[in-house]
């Protein structure tokens, strides 16, 4: 049997419109694609396969909208396309469990390190656990060398440290987008890929009740660290911070309707130089 290199792709919206007031996301199916990291993963798989004569299989867990994205992989040179039909928004462990049977048997499984839709980047790790193989996650550099099947790579660790790995044998690897640029599909493969078949597989039933979201808070950016104001005593600094030292007359009480009040606040902020 021909050796196999697998790639896991996630179809995401590359540019989601967000309503600035409500935070509601405006979907646009035309922006479906994969992250640069997923593209890099396919490129490494294709390069690895060229060295060993292996076939490249691209697997994606998602709805029918992912089929067009998978065909882009066929245009670049993937031989087999598989889509596992899964509920959108399934947790990473279930996604990995759905993907696992379709990448089992591959010498290497390549993934992007994190998807663009605020993914946790946990699927590759769960996948390695499901398959019971080694993992090399978050690769910054990949060197396939001349060896058949293995590779060496540089990996990010916490605190800015790095670790160099040598991987032989079956493994799940995830790489960052900058490690490789996906090759430009040839015209011939572009034409062929239009008809490339996508094998559709059912996802296994969830193993245990998935954790469900009880509540959700809006996105809060981290607090900005502001240098302390000058002042010899703590009390002075606090007074400066809370504006108690501000010239008198700055504070003003107005009674207005909501729209006028908003206007008045904006005007005041602009007058105080608080607005850009």
């Amino acid at each position, binding site marked *: 049997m021909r050796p196999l290199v697998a790639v896991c792709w996630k179809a995401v919206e590359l*540019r989601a419109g967000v309503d600035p007031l409500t935070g509601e996301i405006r979907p*646009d199916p*035309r*922006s479906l694609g994969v992250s640069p990291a997923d593209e890099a993963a396919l490129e490494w798989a294709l390069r690895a396969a060229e060295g060993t004569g292996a076939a490249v299989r691209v697997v994606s867990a998602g709805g029918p909208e992912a089929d067009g994205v998978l065909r882009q992989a066929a245009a670049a040179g993937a031989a087999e396309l598989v889509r596992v039909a899964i509920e959108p928004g399934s947790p990473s462990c279930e996604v990995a469990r759905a993907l696992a049977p379709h990448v089992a048997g591959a010498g290497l499984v390549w993934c992007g390190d994190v998807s663009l839709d605020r993914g946790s980047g946990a699927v590759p790790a769960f996948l390695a656990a499901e398959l019971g193989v080694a993992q090399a996650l978050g690769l910054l550099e990949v060197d396939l060398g001349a060896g058949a099947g293995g590779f060496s790579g540089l990996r990010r660790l916490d605190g800015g440290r790095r670790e160099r790995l040598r991987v032989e044998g079956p493994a799940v690897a995830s790489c960052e987008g900058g490690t490789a*640029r996906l090759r430009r599909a040839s015209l011939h493969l572009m034409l062929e890929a239009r008809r490339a078949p996508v094998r559709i597989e059912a996802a296994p039933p969830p193993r245990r009740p998935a954790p469900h979201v009880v509540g959700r808070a809006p996105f809060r950016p981290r607090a900005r660290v502001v240098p302390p104001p000058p002042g010899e005593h703590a009390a002075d600094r606090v007074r400066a911070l809370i504006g108690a030292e501000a010239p008198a007359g700055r504070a003003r009480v107005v009674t207005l309707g909501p729209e006028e009040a908003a206007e008045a606040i*904006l005007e005041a902020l602009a007058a105080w130089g608080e607005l850009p």
Partner: protein
Amino acid sequence: MTRRSAAVSFEDVMATTEFRPAPAAHITVDGDACRGCTTRACVTACPARLFVPIADGGILFNYEQCFECGGCYLVCNEKGAISWSYPEGGAGVVYRRG
């Protein structure tokens, strides 16, 4: 409330349009020709503000946020100073409401 629209900076307006940068520039500018140019029509005519005059008399240019209109090479009066083609297929500006 007109102030709200006026307060949007040009950079913010440009950020509403999607660009998928190509690996290579589709515009090239011949700096020597620009140093002799007095009109610099490209600097004012480019709707994306891609052309910026620099201290040594040349022109600095970007290609990443190009609308691909072609106005720059048409207004350029130093013959051939701007060479222009379309970017690689799939790259460049992507309109959603053009």
